[in-house]
């Protein structure tokens, strides 16, 4: 299945695998074998919907996917870098702990569910329920940046981390309804204005402070580099910042 490794073994032991028509279980097993053999860059050609690529991987390794990445890309992943040179399906970065996923295309629903660390960059649109229950803890701060638009329930139950939606070439509103519903931690940044009727009842708009701007600037530079995009025009645009107004949104819901 695998072709010969490249000649640059001292710098980066790399290997290309033809994934055309290979069942996910076999493909992921092969990826693990290659990681164990010491390869640090694994290029998967001909991927079309294979699930769980990078699932549970904890090593310092880069996986380059040429094709459409299947569901649960990078689920439970803890460290690797995954680059998708096409679209990704649903469930990207499910419960991901650390590492980076770059999708040079669109991504589907439920991206970054329960994600608690690492970064996901999507150059295009993302689907419904993106960033559900993202949470941060100490130095672990998950980050999602998408270059396009998003569906409803963006940041539902969000408990920590940062989500940025750029809507490049788009007019607001960039997301659907119930934006940040149930949010009780973290921050969402959207380019341009946000309409009050889109917002979940637990979230409010706050002005960006200097720290926010500085953070965004650095993040967008990294995103632009990974995405291969020029974002110099975006830097001057106004952003809206959404944050929860309580860490205890449901404190008064019960009686005893």
């Amino acid at each position, binding site marked *: 299945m695998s072709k010969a490794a490249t000649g640059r073994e001292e710098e980066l032991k790399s290997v290309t695998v033809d994934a055309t028509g290979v069942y996910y279980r076999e493909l992921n097993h092969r990826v693990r074998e290659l990681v164990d053999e010491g390869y640090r860059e694994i290029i998967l050609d001909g991927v079309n919907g294979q699930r769980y690529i990078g699932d549970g991987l904890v090593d310092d390794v880069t996986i380059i996917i040429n094709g459409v990445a299947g569901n649960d890309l990078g689920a*439970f992943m803890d460290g690797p870098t995954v680059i998708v040179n096409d679209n990704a399906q649903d469930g990207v970065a499910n419960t991901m702990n650390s590492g980076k996923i770059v999708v040079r295309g669109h991504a589907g629903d439920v991206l970054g569910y329960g994600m608690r660390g690492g970064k996901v960059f999507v150059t295009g649109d993302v689907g419904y329920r993106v960033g559900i229950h993202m949470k941060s803890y100490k130095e672990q701060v998950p980050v999602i940046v998408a270059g396009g638009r998003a569906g409803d329930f963006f940041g539902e139950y969000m408990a920590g981390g940062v989500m940025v939606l750029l809507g490049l070439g788009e007019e607001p509103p960039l997301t659907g309804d119930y934006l940040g519903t149930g949010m009780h*931690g973290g921050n969402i940044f959207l380019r341009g204005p946000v309409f009050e009727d889109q917002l979940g009842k637990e979230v409010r708009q706050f002005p960006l402070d200097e720290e926010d701007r500085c953070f965004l600037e650095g993040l967008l530079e990294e995103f632009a580099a990974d995405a291969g995009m020029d974002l110099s025009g975006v830097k001057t645009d106004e952003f809206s910042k959404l944050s929860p107004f309580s860490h205890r949104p449901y404190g008064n819901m019960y009686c005893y």
Partner: protein
Amino acid sequence: MAGSMVTSEFLVEVDHQRCRRCKRCILNCGFGVFDFQNMTTADSSKCVACHRCVVFCPEEAITITRNPLAFKEHPSWEVDRRKAIWKQAQSSGMILTGMGNDLPWLNVFDHLLIDACQVTNPSIDPLREPMELKTFLGRKPDRLEVSADNGGFRLQTEVGNNVELAVPIMFSGMSYGSVSLNVHKSLAIAAEKLGTVMNTGEGGLHPELTPYTDHIIVQCASGRFGVHSDYLNAGVAVEIKIGQGAKPGIGGHLPGEKIGREVSGTRMIPVGTDALSPAPHHDIYSIEDLRQLIYALKEATGYKPVSVKIATVHNVAAIASGIARAGADIIYLDGFRGGTGASPAVIRDHVGIPVEIAIAVVDKQLRSEGIRNLVSIIAAGGIRSSADVAKAIALGADAVGVGTAALIALGCRLCQKCYTGNCSWGIATQRPELTDRLDPDWGAERLVNLINAWSLELKEVLGALGVNAVESLRGNRERLRALGLDSTTMDILDVKPAGR
């Protein structure tokens, strides 16, 4: 205007002749009932009848009685209903409660009788002859390929990972956060000594439990608290918690008060934030999505067994069939009597079906489809005694889970106030002065004693039935009879009435 229309449930009286003013009651009460001004005083309105003060009063000076206050009786307006309305009219909140369903629904276990041998086949003496309780949880092949070579036999079929239990009783998932770390330690130590497993619940795995991970099932619930690669690989199996018997279909909500430094670290969320578990897993909106998560977990763990825990609801048989076909190795059925640290009373008391019925229909459904070997069935939610264990197994369960019974062994008085975080017994609380009260070694010893006692009783039952392995009881409904059940229920249980 009066502060509250709700009158005290209990009356606390201190016998001042006997009281030696040692103030132990003040220290022991987690709910702040007692005070001292020249003499010990008690605020009965705060009392939950947890008996901590009574047990620790050296002079037996404290008595707790039910408030005898007379209410005009009304058969459909029981006092508790009136109290609920007063509370809600005052606060606009949902009535919150803890532990299991306390409405007097029919208990099917209490209407099932166990058989015994007389003359035509012998009973077996479990004290002197072998009696086997060992149980394996997980997927088994439908059949084995065995080849003969050189006078020996060789297994040609690979049997997947299973969880081995020395006794068919395991500890149910109760999260660190809802219960104290010392409860988790007690459960883990006991599980190791007993050769069974405890279940983390959805609050992650505290590092101090690392020595016991061969006896721990880790849970992955909708909040994904503390779920990462190391966690998933730590235990002997991973459980996807879809639902809980006490609150089918709703999420969880651990209040920020219970998220101290340690709980925050284990759950991997900041101190003081509410820990919200969404009602569904947002990556599971359909059965094929469950398959996707099951295999995501298997891929992440080198194909450890995956358990799927569901609350027993009306269509449980078809759901279980789907779960089995989705690739689960274990189905954990949590009946509507199952416990909880916090649930809206309307859900706890009115949603779901008894686990007895669920075992019967799930076992039957899986057999009718010829897929019973694909999964093991664990029955939980209302297992109170070894008799319940035997009956659950005879109805078709491979093993049972106990949660409430384990907590009662640790001192729980079933006061149903877990959600307050004030548990005087150090169980359902994170207040350090309270959690210190539960010594894990003491707790483990009591749990070991309880399960060993139940095992002895279960062996006596097996012996009386004339079988010497628990698998000969499993699904053997022929050895059960019903007393006082209607014919439809007997039909569903596939159990004959006593006398037939």
